């Protein structure tokens, strides 16, 4: 396993220490709960936005904490939900009379942990609501599973809710924003390689040298199909078509378009995919009002990418354009 790691059991607290050291004015943390929060939150008149899930998806979730985005986040071990008490402590640390909104990616482990934590917090009269994000079109929604997974579309829900909270919106208003974004955002990903959690030491799945997994989940969950690797344009078309028909996105739509790297794919490749996706969207008569090319929701060092489209209206576009500052930054 070719990774920078000391004791794999300390992987999460150690990189968390790095995040805190790199952002001393912005963030403070609690190592016991693998939790990071804004130093200047909670405040009484602003809703707090929190999230937490497994590690291995960085910059989600810890490195998305900051003004205009999350107010706090806790992370479990790599690819495993945080324990209930960490979720509970995160809610408590950000509790405010205006309320706490928990943005939960739709995985059973995350949902149960946050659900129980919310129950515990409510028992202490903390005002808290949950919202479930499920943007991944790869999975068929069905009564018999937890349903669609929450993947890179997560970024847009965080961004819009963070901006709405900064603007002083109420808990119910922000919940409506979350719902609107989630209803209008769709994602599908593709993996070229597997990845290796530090504590596991072996790849989470096997894949042939000439194969790709179309519709991959961010923990290596199987997707729609395992096929031979095709060229970049054909792959982009597959992702674009799956996403576009799902909402459906239509001619005349103003959209935000994201190419998200899963970890092991280079910026050059991501821009190459973006170029094709952009021209497909324009070819269908859509206007790409905002774009995002980079790593937003990763699966460790997996080579692969996902394509996300969000249908915009004036309100959401305003929230996307609002200022924000997080650990993940260039300058």
């Amino acid at each position, binding site marked *: 396993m070719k990774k920078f790691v000391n004791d794999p059991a300390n992987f999460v607290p150690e990189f968390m220490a790095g995040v805190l050291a790199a952002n001393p004015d912005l963030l403070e943390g609690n190592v016991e709960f693998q939790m990071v929060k804004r130093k200047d939150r909670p405040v009484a008149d602003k809703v707090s936005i929190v999230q937490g899930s497994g590690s291995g998806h960085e910059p989600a979730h810890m490195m998305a904490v900051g003004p205009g985005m999350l107010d706090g986040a806790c992370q479990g071990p790599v690819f495993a*939900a945080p*324990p*209930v008490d960490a979720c509970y402590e995160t809610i408590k640390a950000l509790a405010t009379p205006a309320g706490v909104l928990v943005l939960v990616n739709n995985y059973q*482990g995350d949902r149960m942990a946050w659900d129980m934590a919310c129950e515990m917090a409510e028992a202490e009269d903390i005002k808290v609501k949950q919202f479930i994000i499920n943007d991944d079109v790869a999975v068929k929604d069905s009564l018999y599973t937890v349903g669609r997974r929450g993947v890179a579309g997560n970024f847009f829900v965080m961004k819009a809710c963070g901006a709405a909270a900064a603007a002083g919106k109420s808990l119910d208003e922000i919940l409506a924003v979350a719902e609107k974004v989630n209803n209008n955002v769709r994602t599908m990903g593709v993996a070229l390689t597997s990845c290796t959690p530090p504590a596991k030491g072996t790849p989470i799945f096997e894949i042939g040298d000439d194969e790709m997994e179309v519709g991959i989940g961010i923990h290596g969950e*199987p997707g729609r199909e395992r096929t031979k690797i095709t060229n970049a344009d054909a792959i982009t078309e597959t992702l674009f078509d799956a996403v576009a028909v799902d909402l459906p996105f239509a001619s005349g739509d103003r959209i935000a378009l994201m190419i998200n790297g899963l970890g092991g794919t280079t910026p050059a490749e991501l821009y190459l995919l973006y170029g094709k996706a952009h021209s497909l969207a324009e070819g269908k008569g859509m206007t790409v009002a905002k774009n995002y090319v980079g790593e937003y929701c990763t699966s460790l060092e997996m080579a692969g990418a996902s394509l996300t489209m969000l249908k915009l209206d004036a309100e959401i576009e305003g929230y996307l354009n609002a200022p924000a500052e997080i650990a993940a930054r260039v300058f």
Partner: protein
Amino acid sequence: MSALDQAQIEEAIDTACDTVIRNEQYFSDLDGLAGDGDFGTSLATGFRIIKKDLPEIDKSAIGAMLLKISMLCSKHVGGSSGPIWGTGFMKAGMASKGKTEVTLPELAEMIGSAVEGIMARGGAKLGDKTLLDALIPMAETMKAMADSATPAEMLRAVTEVADNAIDETRKLVAHRGRASQVGERSANTPDPGIVGVATILNDWCKHYGVDYTPKAAELNR
């Protein structure tokens, strides 16, 4: 009507801890067949701490003890099992708040309440191939027997229910948890949660001298 006091509940929990710790590797191996292979480790990590803390924790009432155990699950049991087992202990604890002993009907109510809590928490139903496929019929059996049976008779009956659940669900496809992500591949593997529940009950039978001969291969290793 027979009743169980705090010390008896504590003894049962301590015994369950031993079962979970002893089967750490086996339970994880079972989870590895269709899931992510962490069930044994997740559970054993938490139950090792429960066993260690058990002598020290608040035992003013059964409810207080169970709520404290629920907290330890929330904190130390990873994966889905944390909230599942934590919810179970929490609801059972709330149903026995302030009590220093519980009658069998009361015990049946506690288990019923735990089962409902777990169903609400994880959204699983009977037939989804989770430990609820053992717990739901167990709770029904307890409710039906509670007024007339002895503790030993009831333990034998629920052990048989859980034992049966292993084979009855073996062929099913999982609809919840990690195992649901591999689709058809989860068929023909036993559900580790059901095996875990049945193993604890079977070990209780041994511990309390209740005569029971298990049927499922997983209990006859």
